[in-house]
């Protein structure tokens, strides 16, 4: 009995680590850059496929490919913001109009990226095996790759949190999150900072994709589910709160693990039920303003 509880708990943490990482990424994009990036899952998918490709064709192990997928996806995100979203921000008459048009642009991006992936890699499921060795942990068995995933996810989250709190760029980002107009007046190069934020958000998606590919199969259509999960986590944690995304991700992972144990196939439904409860009772979430 205790073993089962531990099993479920740790599985929940493993899932939660990933959820936290993807949610922090989306939180950066929506909370600071004000772009509701519903194509977030596609960046995750890209990261996963980059890793699969370099593993299958070059034999590079996934942990090393983190150093590839992260920066590549960062650059893509940075570029997209500097071109597309900057323009939208300029031509939008109100902030609400920008939120609307940027979200729709992401909707278009979703289909662009997904179909590009299908064209490049084909529509079927792919996978690879890496560190699929079981490790014993207090009586429960876990695949080593999942523990590695959790480790990295937590490390990335912590590193990023420290980055936000202690570096100059981090402070600029936090200022922009509070009030981008004021931050701009204070000499912060707003366009640059917002593009960096979007890039960082995308980078986290890319890194998550790599980590996910270590334990799960990948498919060009895998992104939608993760986008949805990220959205629910940022509502749970509170829109605009990075800490909220971290904690919310862990909570949702735990819930997912519990539900999967009771009735597999219903985890998405369970997440949505939580979403609905939040909307009914506390839309601002745990740490929202």
């Amino acid at each position, binding site marked *: 009995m205790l073993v089962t509880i531990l099993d479920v708990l740790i599985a929940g943490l493993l899932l939660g680590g990933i959820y936290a990482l993807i949610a922090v990424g989306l939180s950066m994009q929506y909370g600071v850059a004000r772009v*509701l990036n*519903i194509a977030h899952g596609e960046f995750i998918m890209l990261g996963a496929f980059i890793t699969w490709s370099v593993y299958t064709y070059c034999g590079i192990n996934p942990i090393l490919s983190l150093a590839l997928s992260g920066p590549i996806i960062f650059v893509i995100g940075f570029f997209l913001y500097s071109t*597309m979203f900057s*323009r*939208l921000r300029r*031509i939008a008459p109100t902030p*609400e109009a920008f*939120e*609307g*048009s940027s*979200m*729709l*642009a992401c*909707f*278009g*991006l*979703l*289909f*662009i990226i*997904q*179909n*590009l992936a*299908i*064209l490049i890699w084909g529509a079927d499921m792919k996978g690879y095996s890496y560190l699929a060795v079981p490790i014993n942990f207090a009586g429960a068995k876990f695949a080593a790759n999942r523990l590695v995933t959790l480790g990295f996810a937590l490390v990335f989250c912590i590193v990023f949190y420290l980055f936000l709190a202690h570096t100059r760029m981090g402070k600029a980002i936090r200022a922009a999150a509070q009030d981008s107009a004021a931050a701009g007046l204070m000499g912060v190069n707003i366009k640059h900072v917002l593009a960096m934020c979007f890039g960082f958000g995308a980078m986290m998606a890319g890194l998550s994709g790599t980590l996910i590919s270590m334990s799960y199969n990948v498919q060009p259509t895998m992104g*939608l*589910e993760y*986008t*949805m999960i990220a*959205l*629910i986590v940022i*509502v749970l944690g509170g*829109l605009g709160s990075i800490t909220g995304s971290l904690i919310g991700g862990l909570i949702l992972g735990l819930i997912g693990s519990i539900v999967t144990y009771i*009735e597999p*196939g*219903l985890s*998405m*439904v369970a997440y*949505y039920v939580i*979403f*609905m409860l939040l*909307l*009914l009772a506390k*839309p601002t979430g745990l740490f929202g303003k």
Partner: protein
Amino acid sequence: MVWLLVMLALALSPLYASRYTIILLSTILMNVVLSVSWAMFSGPTKYISLAPAAFFGVGIYSAAVLGTKLPMPAVIVIGGLASFCLAILVGALTLRLRGIYFVMFTFGLVELLMHFLLWFELNINDTTGRVVPSLDNSTVFYLMLLIFAVLMLTVYFIKDSKFGMALQSIGENEEAASHIGINVTALKIVTFGVSAFFMGLAGAIMATRWTYIDPKIAFNPVISFMPVLMAIFGGMGRPYGPIIGAAIFSYLGEFLITKFPYYYMLIFGIILVVAILYMPGGLVGLAQNIRNQYLRRRHAHS
């Protein structure tokens, strides 16, 4: 007047057009219904719904579940009503909050329904798919034409009424609208429900084209994308904007599916992004800009 002629021509087409043309026209009408219904709510209120696929899917699924048990006309209406009820629920939950929650919720609705029905069918009903009785092409065409006619009548009725003005004011400034006595939440919910009703009707009718339906087929995210693309590209400033967009992309879709089967969604995605970046008013907006520029030049010369 133009409308009457168009409707007459369409109503008589099964008599002289080829089978292929009738099928294409049915597809165009379906897309028109989807994009006009989408624009009916998301246009004036500026709440962007990403759920057309969910409501269309509910219509399809209603036909799949009831098609063998009840006569088709009843099934189609029930499909519409089921979507209406779902929309009311979703609206009551999300439309009293900021628009962003509405977008998020509608975005995931398709996946949610798919996952839930998949689990339900597998675990409770022990089936994987259902069979829908088929209808002949002319019947499908006439049904879609009827839905289209009712929809356009509804749209024009709303547009020129107090209801339509109130909807527009919500999109202009929701807070002000509520302070002059408009029950904004109720209005949004009802309009959302009506738009979903039509999507559900369309879904139930088109279900007869597939002989085999399962949750993955019924709930397809592309169906959420197409109305958005069509309405935005066509332009939401006028009721006929989405119609033009639907006609263009239906035809384009048919053409591209045969020549570039894997590229067409990619192309459509690019077109949406380009439209948002460079022609936010759609074709209608573009035409108005050109007209305004022409008028200005005339004034300058006179």
